[in-house]
């Protein structure tokens, strides 16, 4: 009897771990070598209504207009990342592998060395100018601080309490870029405004704990903040729920997050991960892959922006919008230097 049970248990464990580690679109043996694109999602996975979805949109764009086939993996736990990259890189049909998220930085360096004939790109790669980047890796960087500066300026001009909030996911150099850009934007237009700052945690799980995000947001609202900007992935969904409950404003990140709490989302700082993924697939396909140094997408390159459409237009006064457009121009012309740490 015991044996039967242990067999049942092992099957349980095995099925659950395969469920955690599912790969989509099995490659056909007939696919020509180096013709497909592989992509590994970050914690949160597809459907995070944030940058994983953005990256996925880039894949779909590449499929529609370039006729590229793709495969992706949504890793379940932290340790699965590197093996997921390896799994894709080791397939003959796949020529380029994307990692979505700064958390892939070290993994992608490792795997790129093991597969020198394959190409790699990493969204939000933590670039360190003192360390060499492998020639077959393109680090993709965004100037989130510039986009955050603009939404910060909106918050600074629109706050009635002179207190605004920022909620980050995992405390890390990347998320701090959002924070300092935002703070700089708030202070630039409203030096008297106070910015409350909170982080959900110090590990990758801090991006997928919406209950914590909600509590952090409620705490800031109850301390007088009337607008909160989040850079916290799925954790940020809790911020929107708090905004709804308290009838205050929140600012979305990465994608237009209006639909999370219509009427309460002042704007969103969008990061065009789809553009980056698409551009790099296109260049790779045309044989123009240029690795080893970072590709930067800022306001100038249209890689970051904020949302101003028919939905949130009634929330933002004309005067504020004009001022922000002016600030955008000044940043592009380098009249304003936006700090990034």
């Amino acid at each position, binding site marked *: 009897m*015991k044996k039967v049970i242990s067999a049942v248990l092992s099957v349980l464990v095995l099925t659950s*771990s395969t469920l955690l580690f599912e790969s989509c679109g099995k490659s056909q043996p007939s696919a020509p070598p180096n013709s497909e694109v592989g992509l590994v999602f970050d914690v949160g996975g*597809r*459907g995070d209504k944030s940058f994983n979805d953005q990256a996925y949109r880039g894949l779909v764009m590449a499929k529609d207009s370039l006729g590229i086939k793709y495969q992706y993996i949504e890793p379940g736990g932290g340790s699965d990342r590197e093996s997921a990259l390896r799994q894709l890189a080791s397939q003959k049909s796949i020529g380029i592998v994307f990692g979505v998220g700064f958390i892939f930085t070290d993994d992608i360096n490792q795997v790129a060395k093991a597969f020198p004939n394959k190409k790699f790109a990493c969204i939000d790669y933590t670039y360190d100018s003192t360390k060499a980047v492998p020639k077959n890796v393109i680090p993709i960087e965004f100037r989130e601080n510039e986009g955050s500066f603009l939404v910060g300026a909106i918050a600074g001009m629109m706050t009635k309490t002179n207190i605004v909030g920022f909620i980050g996911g995992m*405390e890390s150099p990347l998320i701090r870029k959002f924070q300092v850009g935002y703070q700089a934007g708030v202070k630039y237009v409203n030096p008297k405004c106070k910015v409350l700052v*909170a982080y959900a945690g*110090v590990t990758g799980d801090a991006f997928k704990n*919406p209950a914590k995000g909600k509590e952090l947001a409620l*705490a800031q609202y109850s301390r007088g903040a009337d607008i909160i900007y989040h850079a916290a992935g799925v954790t940020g969904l809790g911020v929107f729920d708090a905004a709804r409950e308290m009838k205050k404003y929140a600012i979305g990140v990465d994608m237009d997050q209006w639909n999370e709490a219509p009427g309460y989302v002042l704007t969103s700082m969008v990061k065009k991960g789809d553009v980056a993924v698409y551009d790099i697939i296109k260049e790779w396909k045309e044989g123009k892959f240029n690795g080893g140094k970072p590709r930067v997408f800022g306001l100038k390159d249209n890689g970051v922006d904020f949302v101003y459409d028919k939905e949130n237009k009634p929330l933002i006064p004309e005067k504020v919008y004009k001022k922000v457009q002016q600030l955008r121009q000044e940043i592009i012309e380098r009249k304003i230097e936006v700090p990034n740490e």
Partner: protein
Amino acid sequence: MISQIFSLAFLAQTIRITVPYSLASLGGVYSERGGVVNIALEGIILNGAFCATVGTYYTGSPWFGLLCGIAGGLLVAAIHAVISIHVKADQIISGIALNLFAVGITKFVLQILFQSSSNSPRIAGLPYIKLAFLKDQPDVEHLLGNPLVLLTVLIVIASHFIIFKTRFGLRLRSVGENPEAADTVGISVTLYRYYGVLISGVLAGLAGAWLAFDQHSFTDGMSAGRGYIALAAMIVGKWNPLGAAAACLLFGFAESLQIQLQGGSLPTQFIQMIPYLATIIVLAGFIGKSAAPGADGIPYEKEK
């Protein structure tokens, strides 16, 4: 600064964090008082949250969703009960397997139903009792008027009474403390152990439903270790309902303090440590010896 921290909002936050801990922790008390170690609490919470979300989404009724949450918790608990009581397998391994299984299966079904592996669409929350004097603080109003909060307090008090003052409680404790003796006087060890584990399924399932309603959606892995914290609280509370609830309150307080202190002058990393520090200090300093029920975790073999 102090008054800013210790406000009504702070109190509300502490309670909000404490409710799911207490429900799951009480579940642990029932299960372990009956002699079955229940690490599967984590998976029960997760599955409870998932079933509550799905039930509410498809019927539009949070009350029906609540029942689904309980049923989802019961289901996982029932599997754990069969594995550990009926076939006498290792209870820890069964618990771990079920936790992993819950993470996988919820994510899998989420993808099938909602084409997303990370979160469900928005669902309605439980209706709350309107409290006119708290109109300016909707977060506090939503909490104190929430029927589940009241229910949790009632369950804590009732559990103390049930476990220590009723015949059912005495029998449950006896099968966990000394199953041979209980068996000799004609108490069915198997039956009472099933009761204990199934009650833990109901309670931890409720904890999951609370999380889903508080968040108005299900997100992948949203139990986020709460089952384990509940187990720790159960041990700190010496397997007593009131003690476990008090320990949960302490954990909820520490976590809420950590949230309120952020943005001040202390470094975040230090503040993030507070809940864990509190646990260690309490465990090491104030609790004294905390002994598990005599036959906790040991399958009962009837003498032939």
